């Protein structure tokens, strides 16, 4: 089968906040060009799990491997260097800054002495937004993000992942609060990224979205992974039945 090591792998990772386990003893992996849908109730630990992968939360215990190599002292900057880009639920946008500065936030295009290459950033921003299908003339690289709609903001956040040619794109509830056409754009983007060899992990409460695009669905409950399915192995109704069983009992087997 696939002898290539997983792109990212977590081994028995735990993270608690105070005395509450947000993620407990979780094994998780994502392979190249794989789309993983992360589903589960509120407080199941999905956001914590992806924030660990993104390097924002440091796990209390467990190991993290990237492309087969164990990484110590994982952090957000290292994650971005490893071509892991995250589109957060809050979209991590600085609202008073322009579209261009948000796309390049934390990794500006610079010349000698850290000088910003403003023109280059603008040109790239323009190209990216066009590619994502935002063609409105009012929608310029120097528009301030605070004035954009939810879908446009999501577009800016995704444009980041796109520009940095991420190998793994993590999307935290990417379709929440989006219109139908905007949601479709996001899902199409994931499929297109997959064709180009990129993987993505996404959290969603819309099971139909997860079912539509994910190769693998991972169900989380109370900080643990309760079970997982390959898409071909289960139909949408059985999946929903399983989810409800997990919510009641914390186990997958109960539904079978």
């Amino acid at each position: 089968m696939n002898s290539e090591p997983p792109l990212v792998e977590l081994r028995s990772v735990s993270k608690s906040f105070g005395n509450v386990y947000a993620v407990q003893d979780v094994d998780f992996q994502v392979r190249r060009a794989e789309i993983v849908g992360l589903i589960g109730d509120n407080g199941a630990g999905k956001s914590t799990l992806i924030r660990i992968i993104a390097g924002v939360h440091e796990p209390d215990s467990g190991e993290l491997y990237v492309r087969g190599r164990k990484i110590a002292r994982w952090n957000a900057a290292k994650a971005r260097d490893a071509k892991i880009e995250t589109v957060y639920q809050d979209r991590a946008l600085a609202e008073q800054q322009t579209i261009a500065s948000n796309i390049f936030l934390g990794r500006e295009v610079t010349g000698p002495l850290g000088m910003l290459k403003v023109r280059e950033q603008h040109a790239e921003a323009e190209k990216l937004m066009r590619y994502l299908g935002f063609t409105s003339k009012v929608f310029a690289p120097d528009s301030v993000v605070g004035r954009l709609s939810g879908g446009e903001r999501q577009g800016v956040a995704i444009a980041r992942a796109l520009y940095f040619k991420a190998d793994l794109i993590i999307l935290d509830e990417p379709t929440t609060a989006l219109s139908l056409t905007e949601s479709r754009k996001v899902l199409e983007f994931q499929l297109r990224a997959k064709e180009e060899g990129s993987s993505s992990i996404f959290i969603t409460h819309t099971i139909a979205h997860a079912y539509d695009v994910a190769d693998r669905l991972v169900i989380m409950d109370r900080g643990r992974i309760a079970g997982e399915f390959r898409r071909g192995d289960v139909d949408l109704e059985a999946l929903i039945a399983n989810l409800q069983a997990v919510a009641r009992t914390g186990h997958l087997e109960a539904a079978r």
Partner: protein
Amino acid sequence: MQLLRRDGILVERPAFGLSAGKFLRVHRALIGASGFYVALMIVFIGAAPSVFLKTDAYTAVFVSLPLLVIIAVPMVFVVAAGEIDLSFASTVGICALVFAEATQGGVNPFVALVLAIIAGVAAGAANAILVLYVGLPSLVATLGMYFFLRGIVQLVSQGIGIPLDFMQYSFFTRLFVGHIGSFPVQMIWGLGLGLVGLFLFNRHRFGAHICAIGDNMLAATEMGINVRRVKALAFMYVGATSAIVGVLSSLININFFPTVGDGLLLTVLAAVFVGGTPAWGGVGTVAGAIVGAFTISFIEPGIIAIGLTGFYTQFFYGLVIILSLVGHRFAVRHAR
């Protein structure tokens, strides 16, 4: 070219580049601050033409105006990053003391300048530790540092000044606070440092990170920006420039005064806010702060020239600050 309606205003939008409407919007704070300054000067020139149509009035103001510019510029970085620094006024004092003690002890003034800057950076680092590692709000932490550092100056100097008359005709003094004709050289240093700040803020990664942090600290962290490092640099930047001001100020007076810098505390902050940098962080204007320093510096001579007594000074400071802040408030359209 095309016309389109935005915010109920017809704007002309060229095929590329900044449209007139957008230019006004992006630079509204600076334009507002400049407009305010020009209006103020027109009032002064109209009321006291015999004073303000001669260069003497300007060269007199330019003696101390650069001191305001030199600290107001880095203060924009601190404020845009969502913090405040009140300690700089005492940092000026302690750095001036370091410079005065060193030069009087026979140290080369250039070396003494470097020592003063090191002291200033250290004071900035102390602020950074209290705010970023201990977790104190910067308003409180730097207020404490303000008293603490001034206290050290008072203790060490025993409240007594140090004359620097031996430096009066030195190359060092002429280089930094001499005159070209009647034009004070420190104005060139002030504007030069202002330009450096302008570049750092608008065209350098540092400025971009400052704004990102002040705008959305969580987003900046998630995008891999080292928030503590960037904020610490901003505090140390203010510290370093405070040291320069301490040295310039002592040279201008040819004397170290234990109170040196205290007069700058509120005027520097006023220059930043009158210049159009809002107090909430995320945005700021260095050019505006420079214009703000001009506005603040001309108020007092303007009032005196008009023939009012010095008792009016604070009244008009207050009036000018409030009016310009109200103006900026209305210029900022988006709700917070």
